[in-house]
């Protein structure tokens, strides 16, 4: 993380935002509010001095009321905590239940709540997690983001310690490795596809990975990309076509495969789809097998 810069906001600007945030409601002093405001601006423009327009745009977009509430909570103001508990703890718990309907994420929500209060810091004094909130988003969204991060990290940590499953397919793997066609063709398909994926614009890769690797619904992807799910669906279709075209072009022009070899290569690659299922991506066998689950009205 870059160190915040001292940007020295004008007193009149601070006064205006102090009033807009209604910070006195939480018995927050003007100087205390100015500190968090300066910290927020200093962090946002850590790399260079902003233009007046950039600064105005940044300040206009700040969630100053949430910033004041978080600052007051971090300073242990009773009224602010009462309000936070009333308004935001239900949000936190609903999010936890959405992440894990069995209630597993509630533990994380409780520990997050403790860290917000500053109980998780073993050092001297109480250092609240609120110090990482700078008002660029709403407080509710920031809480959901922190909870989501902790949930994902907990799952990833658990997976690392889980034993690998018994390898029942070892015999089949040996048989596959003895297939000369497979040894030659499957790496070619993998390389061609990997190259095509690498060449995609970041947003196309984001949609593709969200859908096929992350298993998100089109609506969920739309919430990430800011698009309607029908738009996401159209982009995915276009990306699939472009991937297949690019992969075929490479196999034909660089690897000099015939049409028959290419068909055989795709067929072999289908047998070990891995993280990105070729069958879904290229729709190679749509008539042979239905998609794994219907994830939207706009499913192709």
């Amino acid at each position, binding site marked *: 993380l870059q160190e915040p810069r001292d940007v020295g906001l004008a007193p009149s600007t601070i006064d205006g935002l102090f009033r807009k945030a209604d910070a006195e409601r939480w018995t927050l002093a003007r100087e205390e509010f100015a500190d968090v405001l300066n910290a927020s601006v200093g962090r946002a423009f850590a790399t260079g001095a902003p233009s007046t327009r950039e600064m105005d745009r940044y300040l206009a977009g700040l969630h100053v009321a949430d910033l004041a509430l978080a600052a007051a909570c971090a300073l242990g103001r009773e009224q602010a905590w009462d309000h936070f508990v009333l308004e935001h703890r239900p949000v936190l718990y609903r999010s936890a239940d959405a992440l894990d309907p069995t209630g597993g994420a509630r533990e994380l929500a409780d520990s997050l709540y403790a860290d917000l209060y500053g109980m998780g810091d073993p050092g001297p004094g109480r250092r609240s997690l609120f110090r990482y909130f700078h008002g660029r988003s709403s407080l509710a969204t920031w809480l959901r983001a922190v909870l989501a991060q902790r949930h994902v990290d907990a799952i990833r940590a658990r997976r690392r310690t889980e034993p690998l499953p018994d390898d029942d397919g070892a015999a089949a793997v040996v048989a596959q490795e003895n297939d000369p066609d497979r040894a030659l063709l499957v790496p070619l398909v993998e390389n061609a596809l990997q190259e095509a994926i690498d060449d995609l614009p970041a947003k196309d890769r984001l949609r593709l*990975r969200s859908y096929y690797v992350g298993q998100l619904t089109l609506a969920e992807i739309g919430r990430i990309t800011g698009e309607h799910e029908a738009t996401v669906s159209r982009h995915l279709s276009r990306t699939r076509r472009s991937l297949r075209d690019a992969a075929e072009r490479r196999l034909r022009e660089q690897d000099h495969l015939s049409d028959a070899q290419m068909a055989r290569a795709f067929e072999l690659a289908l047998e070990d789809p891995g993280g990105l299922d070729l069958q879904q991506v290229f729709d190679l066998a749509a008539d042979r097998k239905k998609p794994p689950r219907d994830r939207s009205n706009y499913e192709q």
Partner: protein
Amino acid sequence: VRVDARPQGECLDAETLASWTDGSLTAVERTAAETHAADCDRCLAVLAAIARTTPPPSAIQRHSWLSFRWLVPLTTAAVAISVWVLMPGSPGVPPAATPAAPAAKPAEPTVQAERDSRPQARADAPQQQKRPPAGAARSSDQAESRRSDKADAKESTGSSDRIAERAPPAAAAAPRAELKDERARTLARAAAELPGVIVSPDPAVRWRIAERSVERSTDGGRTWRAQPTGTPVDLLAGAAPAANVCWIVGRSGVVLLSTDGETWRRLAFPDKTADLVGVTARDAVAATVTTADGRKYTTTDAGRAWTVE
């Protein structure tokens, strides 16, 4: 086939993720975040988790409205002209011998809301524990609170899966749906046609861009012929200072120039991450492009050198 993850830079922090979700990142920050998340398993999983906890969006509907905002003055003008033409005694219409035809009905909304319109589940009752437990111990009233929260969560998270169930009965809705579809198609055609058309000083010669493809017409837009540009990114704006000269800009610092009206070459641009959203051109060598965050770059030697304002 596996997708190798080679993310660029550090993982996105909670503030960036939250700002992304709330739509408050700048265009440059957003592009950088998308580039990282596209290749990062962890950030993708976190984004997915946030998406699962996100209430059905209202931003999409706002966006749909904004995308057709340019139609407002057009529609107003059309209505004004219709009223003027149909007014008895106006110069364009002879006095009516029969009663005037009934006025047209107001337009139906063209975008069907597909998100859950139910209000959010209410916040819990105020009887909550104010301070967190030191450990994981919870009292019985917390357990009760959890059950109540779970019920709320079930309501709110289950709603997005019921989009199909809320569709009106097919038979009753068919004529209206056809009408809506036709209007939506008309609007979509108009929206797709107008903003992407680049008209040269010769009105017969024009280009149009749609995402990544470029087409040229030499008969005033009656027929169009595709022109390969070899560009793998979305193209966003263009300017044609002459009938055979056209500049087109797009995402990821793409600047294309055609000086013969037929072939395109990509010019070097100093910021390869910038989304270029506007261009004005004086001739085949001088142009100014605008980035999504408002910076302006000018060249006077066909892209060999750029100066930033």
